């Protein structure tokens, strides 16, 4: 794949990249449970389309680091079958755009079998995939469709935004008896941070307050969390105190943390890289209205991608995506 980014050498400053954190999580899962295996396009010899599984083939062998044909429906469906039979497959799909070829398997089988079978069959499957834009890959490699998956009962949808979450999310996902979709924003793989040695797990049912504030709540997830934090930092210089909530789990949504924050700040901006129409941001906004309407001092604002297939040209792509300046502008509108 022409879009591959090489994993950078481990930096000397003690930080870990998002990519390395994911790889550590995978390595730990593979080493601790022999039911776990990784399957997907280029995960083995190539080392992963985005370098996440580099080196794991040598460590765990081709049975457990399993290269697949370009057959999303078959290998995702095979993951479902293997999970039904008691394995703990981790399936990697290159991007959410390609996951549409497996959408039937994900929705009609993985999400549905437990219910249709009256609780007899569970599908403890983890599907990892890249999402999002920002790397000039044009429309078919750049969309953010995780909100569609968050619509579906029977699935859990996660979007780790930090190196700590990337490091520990897989173990939590594998402990879930149901299918878990893990969305990794493509622009995060090279992002580096200090792993917190005190953090050992991820709460799948709880959003995280990444920055505390009193004037406005900025709700974001995945690749937009860093943009929200950047916007909050910029606003701090103007005397506006912004709280940043990282959803972390898109389904089920943690209403308590979202609404709890809004009840403190009385204002909210929702950031979502998906398109505005019918988006996850609409759902979050609606829940805020349903649960905190009389505590709001201003209508909720949303910052989403422009309603256009994501273009290739840098200037156009940047214009299509939520940017920190857009978040600041939205926050100004609700605070003023």
């Amino acid at each position, binding site marked *: 794949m022409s879009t591959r980014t090489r994993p950078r050498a481990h930096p000397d400053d003690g930080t870990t990249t998002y990519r390395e954190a994911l790889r550590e999580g995978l390595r730990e899962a593979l080493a601790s449970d022999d039911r776990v295996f990784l399957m997907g396009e280029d995960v083995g010899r190539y080392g992963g389309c985005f370098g996440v599984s580099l080196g794991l083939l040598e460590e765990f062998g081709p049975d457990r680091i399993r290269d697949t044909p370009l057959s999303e429906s*078959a290998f995702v469906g095979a*993951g479902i079958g293997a999970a*039904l039979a008691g394995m703990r497959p981790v399936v990697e799909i290159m991007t959410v755009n390609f996951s549409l070829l497996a959408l039937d398997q994900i929705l009609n089988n993985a999400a549905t079998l437990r219910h*249709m079978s009256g609780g007899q069959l*569970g599908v403890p499957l983890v599907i990892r995939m890249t999402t999002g834009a920002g790397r000039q890959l044009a429309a078919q490699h750049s969309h953010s469709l995780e909100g569609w998956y968050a619509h579906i009962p029977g699935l859990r949808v996660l979007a780790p935004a930090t190196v700590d979450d990337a490091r520990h999310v897989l173990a939590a996902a594998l402990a879930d008896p149901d299918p878990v979709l893990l969305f990794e924003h493509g622009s995060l793989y090279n992002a580096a941070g200090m792993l917190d040695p005190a953090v050992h797990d991820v709460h799948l049912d709880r959003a995280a307050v990444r920055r505390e504030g009193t004037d406005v709540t900025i709700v974001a997830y995945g690749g937009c969390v860093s943009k929200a934090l950047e916007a909050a930092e910029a606003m701090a210089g103007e005397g506006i105190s912004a709280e940043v909530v990282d959803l972390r789990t898109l389904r089920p949504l943690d209403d308590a943390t979202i609404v709890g924050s809004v009840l403190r700040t009385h204002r909210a901006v929702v950031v979502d890289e998906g398109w505005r129409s019918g988006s996850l941001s609409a759902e979050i906004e609606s829940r805020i209205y349903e649960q905190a309407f009389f505590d709001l001092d201003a209508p909720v604002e949303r910052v989403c991608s422009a309603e256009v297939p994501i273009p290739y040209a840098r200037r156009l792509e940047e214009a299509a995506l939520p940017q920190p300046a857009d978040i600041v502008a939205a926050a100004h509108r609700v605070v003023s």
Partner: protein
Amino acid sequence: MATAHGGTSARTSQTKRPRRTRGTAATPSRTPAAAHDLDLLRQMLLIRRFEERCVELYSAAAIRGFVHLYIGEEAVAVGVHQALDERDAVVSTYREHGHALARRVPPEAVMAEMYGKATGCSHGRGGSMHLFDGDRRFYGGNAIVGGGLPLAAGLALADRMRGESRVTCCFFGDGAFAEGEFHETANLAALWGLPVLFVCENNLYAMGTALAREHAQTDLAMRAASYGMAAWAVDGMDVHAVEKAARGAVESIRAGNGPHFLEMRTYRFRAHSMYDPDRYRPKNEIEEWKRHDPVTGLADGMRAAGLLDDAALKALDQDVMEEIDRAVRAAEQAPEEAAEDLLLHVTGRPEEAPS
């Protein structure tokens, strides 16, 4: 039948009906072969009568939804199941009453599911198209054409990785053969040498569209063979031919020879579903196929071999009808699922993860 299916190559055909030599009329039911034939007949009759009762119940509005009947295809389910045992897995389609009953899912549980009752094999969440039995490794019940194929590869992959000598049998129709699901799965299964038995029930129609109108090349076994799998076409109206082919395939799969493909040349005597006015099939074609009825075919063969007489057949039929009567009575008296339990079984608790 070969003519009706068209384009059959001699290499892949097994349309001759074997006539096995039987014991004498004096000792009919005492030989193992006779007992076996009687069991095959009983199972096929059970499926036939079960579905005929479903037609009545549907007309009486006791059961609803889409109901796809298997009448005419009974030899496939019953014959294939002779080669499978409890450790194996079965993946099925929306035309799966026959598969479920041949898998020995109790008729009470299947009928209760048709009624949407709490005692149904899917606790009323599935209905006719989504029968499941986890304990019997019966994995549906899939109403997306071809949707079960990748699951079968995955079940087989798990067995392969754990060194189990189990086989996963996947039933699907000629309609599914046109889906990418079949071709992706056939490639994956052959590439990885997975223990899958693909059983394509070629009943000549994908819903209302004839085989030649949906497939550029109608010899499905030949096409399956192009993936590097052993593949045969079998007379799907002859339970002995089905059993023989399935036993050979399963034995070879257990010996580690990877996936095998059987194209079962069969026919459904009824429409695609209860909603289908069946205007697309010539009446004389249906009548011609009914002359190869798998149930009466076996009964006639047994009669000719002196293994069955009118009284014995009547007694057998009576026994089957009573079993179905009991299933219907039980389903009618079974409790409904409570509306308060609507949201059960959407997600599980951690302890519900299969080990």
